[in-house]
């Protein structure tokens, strides 16, 4: 754990959570691609119920 100066602490608290936005973007892409795979890659190829 790095010891931050008071200025650095202020900056850390004021900074926008860019990492969180990036992480949520990765999550969103994962969710959408996963859903699309299930629909187009798994569900539709099974064809209609006979």
């Amino acid at each position, binding site marked *: 754990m790095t010891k931050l100066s008071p200025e650095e602490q202020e900056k850390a608290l004021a900074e926008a959570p860019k990492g*969180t936005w990036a992480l949520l973007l990765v999550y969103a892409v994962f969710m959408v691609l996963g*859903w699309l795979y299930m629909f187009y890659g798994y569900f539709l190829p099974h064809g209609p119920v006979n």
Partner: protein
Amino acid sequence: MYAHASKLSLANMWVAFITFALAALMGVYQVAERSGMFPKIEFIELYYRSVSSHGVIMGFVLTTFFIMGFGYWIIHTTLKRPIWGGERMGWTGFGISLGGTALAAILLFAGEASVMYTFYPPLKANPLFYVGATLLVVGSWVWCLQMVMSMNAWKKENIGEPVPLAMYAMTANAILWFITSLGVASEILFQLLPWSLGIIETIDVGLARTLFSWTLHAIVYFWLIPAYIAFYTLVPKAAGGTLFSDEISRISILMLLVFSVPIGMHHLYVDPFQDAGWKFVHMIGTFMVAIPTLITGFTVFASMEVAGRLRGGKGLFGWIWALNWNNPMVLSGGLSLLMLTIGGWGGMVNASYSLNVAVHNTQWITGHFHLIFAGTAVIMYFSSAYYMWPSLTGRPLFSTKMALLQLWLWFIGMLVLTLPWHILGLLGQPRRIGVAPYSEEVTAPWAPYEFLMLIGGVILFISALLLILNLVLTHFNKKADTPPVMEYAESMHPVINLPKLLNGFGFWTAVIVIYMIVSYGYPILQFFTMDTIGTFPWSI
């Protein structure tokens, strides 16, 4: 005052964890039985007895008692005032719930109630099982009343002050539980109990399933909100940071409260007695729950990012590695959110009206709800217990290393158990079966995944034992010189002017009632205006 309050909380939580350990043992038996590798333990009747007991204990007993214990401790540690109605009322509720649990357990273990935790008719149990289940719920209503009234009493004593977030969220959970349990209570009182007693000969299965769906989805949020409370108020504290936003957290909790109750009909997508239009309405409502879930994800990650940066983390993701992952609360927060991601993705598949057909009633569903409940929620119950136990007992936790090992084992075991279940579901394996009397061609591809499922079950059981061991040994630890205090995260920006709508529930309760009437009014009313087919009982 604290010593008495801690006894009530501890009593509730010990009932939760002792029954949990028992249910975990049943879980190992069930995966061994299902694997088909041990023909000598394949007894169908015993399997369903075990599955029913496992489900009832995990879904109703572990959760209800843990949440009641957590709630009482939150009253004492955030409001710092006596529980409304007094400890005696709390003990009365506890006694009613415990008596109901014992009665239901006797019937379950005796094989008189092998009806699974959903007790869908025409499966019929001994009437005393339904009485026991009702008492468990009625006892928890005492807790609901005490949570709501304690919050109101505190607000009168502290006019204009924001209710502490943990208390606010737990009170939301009490309201949610009361409203959502009315569905199953109506089903038991007006249908299952008279039917099992022989007062009525047949039962309307459609109405019963619709009433149970009223309970069945929001109950998941009853289980999850305590985990969200830990995310919002304990994880940031343990990580050495602050909560990113108190207001956003309240909005998320309120959205969960309003959105999660009137959407249960997605459990009935393939049931014939509800029209497709109603199912579509409930599907839209189900997807709306993704909004507070994403808000929670954002708030918790942002809080952790702040904590990581305060610990010297740099760059876009450097804060992740800077976090103190050797803290059980921080570790469980990260692991829980990972399981929520995978489980949430599965949930999106289940919630999609068309896609649901591909996975409906398969082992995929079992995998999904184990990831969300036993993974996401229960791992936070464990870390919350580790966090609370020192303040509840006045003694430091016996072993942090054992706690970390236990959490890792739970995470690994849960993935080893549930990911193969998802695949088995896609391979067509039905859920809730003890044996599969299908052709070799169908069952052969299942074998490797069933072996993995068995490994996962054993890992989870070891983890469950470690939890109990650590908590028990903590009671024998030396008393701390300074009594440990239960601490909650402060908001990064102090809450000064909180809108009334974010500090009470009157308006939101009215919204839920209207939303419930719109989404469930006609679907329930129709059973009284059309001819339906009564069903005779059937038992395993």
